[in-house]
């Protein structure tokens, strides 16, 4: 199974954020690229998701879904901007 893109984050991130995060613009801490989350590369392994910068491949975010909790690490984002 090949990688997907950030469009698939809409559902999982809706469990944490109250706005659609796929149109949020993030700044990659690695290369400075600023793009919508929908255009990031997404790698799924069972219930776990790794989100990588489409430009430099640095990890932007991980989403781990366990029974009973959702853990989101946003280590690769210098900034996230959301339209309201």
């Amino acid at each position, binding site marked *: 199974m090949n*990688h*997907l893109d950030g*469009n*698939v984050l*809409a*559902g999982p991130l809706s*469990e944490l954020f109250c706005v*659609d995060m*796929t149109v949020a613009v993030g700044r990659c801490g690695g290369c400075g690229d600023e793009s919508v989350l*929908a255009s990031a590369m997404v790698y799924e392994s069972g219930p776990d998701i790794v989100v990588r910068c489409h430009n430099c491949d640095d990890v932007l975010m991980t989403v781990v879904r366990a029974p009973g909790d959702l853990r989101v690490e946003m280590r690769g984002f210098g900034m996230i901007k959301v339209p309201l």
Partner: protein
Amino acid sequence: MTTVAPPVISASNVWKVGTVASVHTESPTGRSLMIDVPGWGGNLAGQHLDLRLSAPDGYQAVRSYSIASASPGDRLELAVDRLPDGEVSPYLVDDVQVGDQLEIRGPLGGWFVWRPEQTEPVQLIGGGSGIVPLVAMARAHAASGSTAKFRLLYSVRSPQDVFFADELASLTSPNFEITWVYTRETPAGWPTAAGRLSPSVLKTATIPAAEKPTVFVCGPTGFVESVADWLVALDHPAASVKTERFGGK
């Protein structure tokens, strides 16, 4: 005197139960499903939903599926292609029957979406089952009476593998033109040999960058990434090319 309560639309991040209202074979590996979801409230063209299957042992699988319809109300249409090693698609294509219930979350996604308020030309490029959200956009375009110029390039293995063949044929108009690319087998008498989409065919069959179209590309990951690269090489601004990868090759 009676009052009628307005329909209750539940939030798009809540899991809802849908009931399969009808099924239709689209191709040897694909099927479309009409699903009634109380509280759905309609969706925009290009949005998707998440579908969750639960096994008796507690194992759950969640997959995203693009929605083929773009209507208001509580009925939606999916079209699914069976992946050879898929966990969920074989169930949806081969096993699900009318009356079965499915757990659904949505509508989801605000990026890969076409809204009738958009007036710029639109180029749709679909590979295989990537046609599904593009069909929703073509339907929304027709239903809204939009005069925006729409073109569709549909790359598919053979005529038998086409999804929504009759409907796409009926949607063609001076405002909506379709170019077919058959990669393995063409219809009888087709003027060109079967073959994969190439940069030169892409160039001649799509709206040129000078017309500033919004381009939507959807299908297997490899197809989407090749096409997106070729579009940028044809001077389409990267910001004008929206992509949705379905995984696979």
